[in-house]
């Protein structure tokens, strides 16, 4: 049996000479994500760290190599990561109205062996966690999606997905904040604006927030 603390050991990989990727795990997992967000917050307070952004189960850290070496930073990251993570305070809850009439809704139901009604009901059931905000401005990776809805991405991504599209892929769901290319299955749409360029921060969702979808008519 390896000692208990080895399970929380963080793998720190260099990302060039001024950044590292601190990997806490490789699974889509709420507890890992909570630890990643807490680690990013703790790292941001350090004077030798310029920026720390949590991923699903990792933290990307920009640091000042004049103040700390890669090795010393890796040791500091492991020290911080072994501290008891703060209690996962429930993030802000966003209730998002969705018109479930996406162009892929029928095909998704067919592929999953469900009715469209069941897809809608299953998608609206959980309270999702915002794992991270990123990719394009305001985009948030939400999950975990019920197992019954898990599907691989579309083999050929769309070159243009309309803003407000509600989509699923793998064990995650999300809302396209801007017109952009995208490979997820489009099951609905919402009028809620996720990218708020004139607010600071400019994203409605923040990592750790919670999201509940509910079905509405036109």
């Amino acid at each position, binding site marked *: 049996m390896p000692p208990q603390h080895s399970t929380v050991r963080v793998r720190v*990989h260099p990302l060039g000479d001024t950044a590292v990727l601190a990997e806490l795990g490789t699974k889509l997992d709420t507890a890992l994500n909570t630890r990643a967000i807490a680690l990013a917050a703790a790292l941001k307070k350090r004077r030798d760290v310029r920026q720390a952004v949590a991923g699903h189960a990792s933290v990307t850290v920009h640091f000042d190599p004049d103040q700390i070496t890669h090795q010393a930073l890796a040791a500091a990251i492991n020290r911080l990561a072994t501290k008891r993570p703060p209690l996962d305070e429930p993030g802000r809850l966003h209730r998002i109205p969705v018109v479930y009439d996406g162009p892929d809704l029928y095909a998704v139901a067919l592929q999953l062996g469900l009715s469209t009604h069941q897809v809608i009901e299953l998608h609206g059931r959980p309270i999702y966690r915002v794992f991270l905000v990123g*990719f394009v401005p305001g985009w948030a990776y939400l999950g975990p999606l019920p197992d019954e809805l898990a599907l691989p991405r579309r083999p050929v991504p769309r070159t243009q997905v309309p803003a407000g599209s509600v989509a699923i892929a793998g064990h995650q769901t999300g809302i396209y904040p801007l017109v952009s290319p995208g490979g997820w299955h489009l099951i609905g749409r919402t009028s809620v604006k996720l990218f708020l360029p004139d607010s600071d921060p400019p994203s409605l969702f923040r990592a750790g927030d919670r999201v509940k979808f509910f079905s509405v008519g036109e």
Partner: protein
Amino acid sequence: MTEVFRVIRPGLLTTIQDIGRPQAVASGVPPGGAMDRFAHTAANLIVGNDRGAATLECTLSGPHLVAEGPRLVAIAGADFQPLVNGAAAPMWTGFFLSAGDQLTFGGRRAGARAYIAVAGGIVADRWLGSMSTNLMCARGGMNGRALVAGDVVSAGEPSGPLVAGRSLADGLQPRYADRILHAIPGPHFTRLHVESREALLGSTFTVSHDSNRMGYRLEGPPLEAPGDELLSFGLVAGVVQVPAGGQPILLMADHQTAGGYPMVLTVASASIPVAAQLAPGDEVRFAETPIDEALRMRAAQRDVLDLLIS
């Protein structure tokens, strides 16, 4: 704030850039900022500005500007053959423009991005802590867009004495023409097949025409980095990602903030200016470099820039 330039022709893509908004990545907003921070910083220091003051970043061709009043300016980075009233103007050197002087460019001789700094620093729309233009979000800089004919560019008041002739010696300028990017193996380098590792570090890649401030698609031998789909993580400029198709992408200043493609290399910070000066069609190679060596190159670049501070 004073009007310094009137834009007669904007050039292919001229935007206002400073050192970006790194804190905005938590909202999915690209960090942005000048692609070639060395040239941007050098031009600023030559005219007595702070390193982070806003400049004009001119892509592949230069603008035609008319000076609205007397100003100390400097041009650094790509050589587009700057001209003042038709006569060759120096690069990497401070010089004065008088009201009515015409600043034009003869054409691209080398590099991809030239920076025009003005004493006092360019002043424009500030968004999320930076004046850098973000074209996708249409925010920052000149109303969130590239310059167009008829725009008027303004600058702040210079803080110190104005000294013309401050200059960066030829030998101290970055060796853009080498087109070698020093790089450090990334977290997913070992996902690459052995042949793909050799191809990545031993082949010449061509910068695709589908390249911009977000990133460069690199054409060359396709790379194979098989394995399970990765969870998304935060990205940094300089990362070389390998998407499913096997054509690597080098992330630049306006890169997407998170993604899940394997990160096989990260370009050393001292080589990012070289990357920033690559134009579509240019050939480039990666050279595996130890972190210590990358840090030495970084320190050497900073020492050169420090020579410009009086």
